């Protein structure tokens, strides 16, 4: 059941990326999809136990490997979002709009 919920979060993100015309909302969609994937890993890690994987805590520890991997995935996601938003900022300065459709029309017309 939880797997379906995590898939839902991932799909909400993908929906935001594909359907929304606003460039900032696309970036938000990417961020939601990214956290969907992170949740997938961390949830799987918690199946074997839910206490923080610190040595010496007697209770069943969560799997440290997905958590370590997700540390990397989160930072990478943040960096890509930062770059995306700066590109959106520069495109907004240039075209005065955040609508991806009009930006592409503008860029395409500018080219020809």
């Amino acid at each position, binding site marked *: 059941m939880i797997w379906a919920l995590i898939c839902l979060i991932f799909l909400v993100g993908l929906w935001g990326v594909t359907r929304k015309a606003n460039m900032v909302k696309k970036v938000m969609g990417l961020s939601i999809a990214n956290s969907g994937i992170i949740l997938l890993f961390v949830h799987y890690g918690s199946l074997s136990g839910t206490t923080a994987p610190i040595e010496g805590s007697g209770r069943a520890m969560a799997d440290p490997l997905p958590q370590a991997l997700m540390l990397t995935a989160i*930072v990478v996601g943040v960096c890509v979002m930062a770059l995306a938003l700066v590109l959106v900022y520069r495109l907004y300065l240039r075209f005065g709009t955040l609508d991806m459709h009009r930006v592409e029309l503008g860029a395409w017309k500018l080219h020809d």
Partner: protein
Amino acid sequence: MKKTTILDLISRKLAPFMLLFGLYLLTYGHMSPGGGFQGGVVIASGVILLFVAQGVEATASLFPFRSLSLLEAGAFLLLVAAGLAGLAAGAGFLGNPIAGVDVRMVPRASMILVYNVLIGLKVGAGISFMCMYLFREDR
């Protein structure tokens, strides 16, 4: 940014504790939950709180732009050098050179501590410098 006294007072009182907590996360990253990236981001948020409340000039005197960008690049260089130290000590790149040393005198985790602190400094300097640079642009 109109400087209200509440913001001014709180930020000046709160920021040191945030920096301290960030440093705690760095140095105790290998014993308790924490680590390089989390500590670095907490330090960056402390610095950003300061310059949002106090304005960029006041904070720039405390954390000058030049030194932050040099710190970021320098910390990364030191991180690669630490990795090479592992290589030189025969433990393979990014390995633990202290593994062979007598454990009692130098705890084996000190290499992890070095990595944590270096990454923390780099992340803290990088993110605060980026935000200050962006913030300065808008004025």
